[in-house]
């Protein structure tokens, strides 16, 4: 292997990473503005025009805050927690095609890679929660691991039926299979879409599934004891994970970068495809924010009930039905 393709890979990786990182502060701003709009408030509008410099101010504040390590905390794991939470989420973006033929690595097992990477985020939360030496943090970490394991199963089972329909685990092939509007997986696998999207909320610890950090019971949950940039890292990880999950929803179900009809060849088509992908991504992210400020939190037993007794059996039934349909379809063809 020579160095130049590696260099090209590095450049692509840095570009995508930078794009995601730039998106995060504005996503936070969007979240605050939209929540204010939903709740009939004004929201941050003082720093810069329309409050657009608010994210910058927030980041500067976080960087300069004092970091406090609680007494008798496990210092090594306490420092590693935020990193373990952030790194997998950032890595996951490598396999997602953000436009026609535009992805860092075209992996033959792309779906598996992204799901694996996102499932690792639980380590940051549970190690951080444990190392803080605080009962609220520990409970937050425990809840998070139980929740993520439970919903991961539903998510994986929902994915299996999608993979059966498309016949591939490569994200680029799944995207290319959805170029015409009616081939979007949301129409071919509507049940899997609902299950996957619900599980995505739980995986990201977002409302209505934000029990690991619910303020009314656990102070701040797993990040109660974190301050300064370590807290900033957790915050960042949460939003990056949210972007990754939204990108997965777009890629797997909403036709990826396809506008629903064939794109022109060449550079123009590629540019349009990136635009279409971004538009869909923002739409899904808006939905995330909308849900957060609309629905109340589930109770813990309701959460487990929904995951194990509703979503998992539903996903399994979906697999059986998909199997029968795919077999008949293949026989007819």
């Amino acid at each position, binding site marked *: 292997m020579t160095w130049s393709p590696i260099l090209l890979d590095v450049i692509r990786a840095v570009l995508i990473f930078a794009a995601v990182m730039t998106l995060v502060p504005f996503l936070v701003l969007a979240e605050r503005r939209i929540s204010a709009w939903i709740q009939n408030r004004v929201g941050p509008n003082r720093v810069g025009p329309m409050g657009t410099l608010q994210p910058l101010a927030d980041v500067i504040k976080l960087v300069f805050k004092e970091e406090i390590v609680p007494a008798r905390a*496990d210092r090594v794991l306490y420092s590693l927690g935020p990193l373990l939470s952030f790194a997998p989420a950032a890595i996951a973006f490598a396999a997602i095609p953000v436009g026609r033929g535009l992805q860092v690595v075209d992996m033959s097992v792309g779906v598996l890679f992204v799901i694996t990477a996102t499932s690792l985020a639980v380590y940051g939360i549970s190690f951080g929660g444990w190392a803080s030496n605080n009962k609220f943090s520990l409970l937050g970490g425990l809840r998070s691991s139980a929740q993520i394991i439970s919903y991961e199963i539903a998510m994986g089972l929902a994915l299996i039926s999608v993979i059966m329909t498309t016949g591939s685990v490569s994200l680029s092939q799944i995207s290319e299979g959805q170029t015409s509007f009616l081939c979007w997986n949301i129409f071919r696998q509507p049940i899997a879409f609902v299950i996957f999207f619900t599980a995505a909320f739980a995986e990201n610890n977002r409302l209505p599934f934000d029990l690991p950090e619910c303020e009314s019971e656990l102070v701040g949950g797993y990040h109660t004891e974190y301050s300064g940039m370590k807290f900033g890292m957790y915050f960042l990880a949460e939003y990056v994970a949210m972007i990754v999950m939204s990108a997965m929803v777009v890629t797997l179900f909403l036709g990826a970068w396809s506008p629903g009809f064939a794109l022109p060849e060449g550079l123009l088509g590629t540019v349009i495809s990136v635009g279409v992908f971004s538009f869909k991504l923002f739409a899904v992210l808006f939905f995330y924010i909308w849900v957060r400020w609309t629905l109340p939190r589930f109770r813990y037993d309701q959460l487990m009930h929904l995951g194990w007794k509703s979503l998992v059996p539903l996903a399994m039934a979906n697999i059986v039905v998909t199997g029968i349909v795919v077999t008949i379809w293949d026989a007819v063809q």
Partner: protein
Amino acid sequence: MSFSDSIFWVFATTAVVPAFLILFTRSIVRMAFLLLGSLAGFAGLYLQLNAAFLGFTQVMVYIGGILILFLFGVMLTQRSDIPVREKVGPALAVPGFFAGLLLMAALLFIALQNPWKTHPPVPVTEPDTPVIGIKLLSTYILPFEAVSILLLAAMVGATYIARVQAPGAPDGQAELSDSNAEGRLE
């Protein structure tokens, strides 16, 4: 040393060094973290051999599943009033030393006796996922099904053990009243 060689050494070190460090760690949660590193190193080695499916399955099953359950168990059961760093007295250290020595001798004996077959990596020409899928459902269908039955049995057993007995109900007759039992389960 070529590029892929240096990558190999990175993964190999990641796989072996944490496993070694576990021996010198007293905190179970830290051990879990080291195990995480070791398992990730092995996954990296699989990936380097172009076995992407195997590599990610390794991460998903061992790191994303088994280890997190392990950690969950430790966090649920560990009590803060019991000190983590217990002193090991001679009553434990002396037999421990000899047991360890014996185990090491046995492992070394096997490692040195075994005629290891080594050959250079075989390049993978087609994606491994379909190959594994077809093999599992044709040549290896019997072991595959046997494992699934084993897992089903384990699941039934776990459900039986986790079942909360309603107060006063005879053994095995307990029926759960919904919210109450779940609250206690979790």
